[in-house]
């Protein structure tokens, strides 16, 4: 195909030329921080000085209930929110794609709309809507669905529900579009055949649609899981910095606060972020194995 020698080298050089700027940026703003984090992880930072403490940061983590609670919250959000959202997104995609014929575009747009908002906007909107004397409580009270206002923002249980609601509202439409795209590439003949065989819509959904969409479900699951592990905007703004009393504190928020708010202990923050990275890696790996293994050859 290509001639050997000078021309080949020229082409190869051009390949590097194309790739070089991004690799440069990567080295400075990604690789260098990752490598230099090794310096921070073994130190305790206080004000302008730092001391070497070996694995002290990890020992401290083992005793740090707040950090452990934060990780637990990440898991709670992940285990509850991700499946609910994926199921809902999938359901909506199927309904839009195969269930109805009119107003498809409008409904799709409506449900996708939340995805154009920033997480800050989501937090701000929900925080104002869910005040003790705010809109949602007013509606529920006047509809006689509850007898006293729900502390959406200051009750340990409901605050977590609030976060889950906010995330679900924001991301369901986004994932739904991915599923829609996937559905449109499916061969309709399979469904017609199943219909002829007498399979109900529900049965078709579970035995045909879902398995065929596994690659996209995997993509959604991995990105959503990674998202819940990195949760920081919502607990910071919506529930007042992980409140009430650290009940919605997440790992990323705690790290941020340790590094830039409470103690400026960069060492401890870096050590905690190592733990978060390792957990994220393990989760991604597990998901790839579980769901990826069933993929048919592309």
């Amino acid at each position, binding site marked *: 195909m290509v001639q050997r020698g000078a021309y080949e080298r020229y*082409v190869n050089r*051009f*390949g590097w030329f194309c*790739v070089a*700027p*991004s*690799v440069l*940026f*990567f080295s400075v*703003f*990604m690789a*260098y*921080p*990752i490598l*230099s*984090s090794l310096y*921070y992880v073994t130190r305790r930072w206080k004000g302008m000085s730092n001391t070497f403490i070996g694995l002290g940061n990890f020992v401290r983590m083992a005793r740090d209930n707040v950090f452990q609670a934060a990780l637990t919250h990440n898991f709670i959000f992940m285990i509850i929110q991700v499946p609910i959202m994926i199921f*809902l997104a999938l359901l*909506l995609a199927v*309904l*839009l794609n195969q269930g*109805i014929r009119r107003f498809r575009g409008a409904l799709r*747009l*409506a*449900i*996708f*709309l*939340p995805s*154009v908002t*920033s997480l*800050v*906007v989501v937090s*701000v909107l929900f925080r104002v809507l869910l005040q003790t*004397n*705010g*809109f949602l409580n*007013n509606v529920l009270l006047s509809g006689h669905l509850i007898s006293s206002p729900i502390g959406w923002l200051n009750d340990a249980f409901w605050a977590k529900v609030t976060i889950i609601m906010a995330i679900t*509202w924001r991301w*369901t439409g986004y994932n739904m579009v*991915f599923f829609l*795209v996937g559905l449109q590439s499916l061969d309709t003949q399979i469904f017609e055949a199943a219909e002829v065989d007498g399979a109900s*819509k529900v049965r078709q959904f579970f035995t045909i649609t879902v398995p065929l969409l596994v*690659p996209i479900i995997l*993509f959604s699951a991995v990105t959503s899981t990674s998202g819940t*592990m*990195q949760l*920081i905007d919502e607990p*910071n703004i919506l529930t007042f910095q992980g409140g009430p009393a650290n009940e919605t504190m997440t*790992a*990323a928020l705690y790290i*941020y606060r340790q*590094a830039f708010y409470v103690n400026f202990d*960069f060492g401890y923050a*870096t050590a905690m*972020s*190592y733990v*978060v990275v390792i957990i*994220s*890696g393990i989760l*991604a790996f597990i998901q790839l194995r579980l769901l990826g293994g069933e993929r048919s050859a592309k």
Partner: protein
Amino acid sequence: MTVVNKWSPGHVIMWLVLLVCAAVSVFPFYWMLNGTTLNPNDVLRGLLVPGGDFVSNWRQATTTYNLPLFFTNSLLIALITVLFGVVINAMAAFGFEKYRSRARDRVFGILLLTLILPQIAIVVPLFRLFSFLHLLNTRAAIVLPSIMSVFIIFFLRQNFKLFPTEIMEAARVDGASELSILVRIVAPSMRASFASAAIYMFIAQWNSYLWPLITILKDTMKTLPIAMSSIMNAYTIQYGALMVIVCVSTLPVLILFLTMQKQFVAGLLGSVK
């Protein structure tokens, strides 16, 4: 396609689910727009009918809260990021896809690994780096780390896959240099993909929160998300003006998306496959 009985229970439930979800999705937008016309107490209460306070809210947002400054900051930063980002990431994607080599594949593999790296893991060293370079509290600090995006490179690579290499070969036979092939033949036909990438990067940078939160120290550098976050921490929150800022922050993205829907979805389609 199958024929469904119009008013079967299944059909009704289906419509109900869709309508409820659509309503819940859209409601906060209506509420946010309506809020710009109400006084702070009514915003909190959640009045659904428009009020007459739009002008005063707008004035408060633009003077007390300095909305134009934040908007300009956000816009400038997002545009610069997109300008550099699309060029650099597109070049990289092109290089990785059309100039395969073992070494480059390995490099790409390393880049891919960082996709699951949470941002929080690198903010501390990045902060210290920019502090050392005396670049804290500058737009450069926000723009520079966002220019290279592995996700965009991956996305564009998928799209470059669909570009027929034979055309490149033909041009090479004609004696064209590699650079001119990229600029004159490949790039023009990839416009749709670049547009998608540009939109995606713009939205990501426009809405970016954590890193600007860390690097912005003074009011004059604030972007819209940071400004909103600060307002939520203030002594008294002027909810009406806040709603104006929220709307201004959301509308560009909304308009961008509405006008570019087709490209956006086409791009997603390409990357998923």
